[in-house]
């Protein structure tokens, strides 16, 4: 067992930073299934979430305010003008590869645009939609 510890630590170190979109999706899906055992991620619901105007923030009423309506293309921050790389992992392989970063931006942007935290199901839907886009 002792000999295994460094291997296990190594594994965790790798998984803590690098993950695939599928792995990150699986995490949110499992969390959503705890509340609703029949939950299935839906790209359609994710697309709706992405395009919907929430109207909570005047400057950022929707995800598309900064990310544009096409997640395979880059956008720009609606206030600062800073370039934003595409959200769809097929267009930008860096997306959904770091669970902590994904969670940070869901926390910030859901708070900003929806005025509340997103549910695990919404996050899983959102990622499912983005993984579909090419």
């Amino acid at each position, binding site marked *: 067992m002792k000999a295994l510890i460094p291997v296990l630590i190594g594994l965790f170190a790798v998984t803590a930073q690098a993950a695939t979109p599928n792995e990150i999706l699986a995490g949110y899906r499992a969390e959503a299934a705890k509340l609703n055992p029949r939950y299935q991620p839906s790209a359609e619901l994710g697309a709706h979430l992405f395009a919907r105007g929430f109207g909570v923030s005047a*400057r950022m009423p929707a995800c598309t305010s900064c990310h544009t309506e096409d997640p395979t293309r880059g956008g720009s*921050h*609606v*206030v*600062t*003008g*800073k370039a934003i790389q595409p959200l769809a992992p097929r267009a930008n392989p860096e997306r959904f590869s770091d669970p902590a970063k994904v969670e940070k931006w869901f926390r*910030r942007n859901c*708070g*900003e645009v929806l005025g509340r935290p997103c549910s695990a199901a919404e996050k899983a839907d959102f990622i499912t939609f983005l993984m579909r886009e090419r």
Partner: protein
Amino acid sequence: MGTPGRLANLLFLSLSLAGVAQADDLRLPAGAPAAFQNECGACHLAFPPRLLVAEDWRRVMAGLDRHYGDNAGLDAPTRRAIETYLVGNAGKPKKLGSSGTAASDEAPRLTATAWFKRKHHEVPQAYWRHAEVRGPSNCAACHKQAVAGSYREREIVMPDGHRWQD
């Protein structure tokens, strides 16, 4: 007889050249925590610490939960690391001037210092409002090498595509 004069001239010339280089060179000082780029630099240019005085940076970092209309809240260790870096490399009050907001609830803006205003007083208002610029804090809109910390006049391209001319 001419030697001391020439020497003085040379000295003066090299001093003024150093002054010019300094104003154009806003590369980030060494020692930035990784979070400085990852957090601050995620939404806007990771601004050179020299563009605000220490007191203004402290006030920016004390109000991250309402950061120019956004919630940019950070965990305490990250916030402290970034604040230490900004304050330690902050601009000199005499040279820069403060943002002039210390007495109000307003957040300090690095575009409100006397130095910034003097440097940009020739820029027409229409450029600041241009759709691709969105405001004077978007350094990289015209300073094409701003990401690398270089603000030379010859690198400036205005939003209408024209090079800057005095």
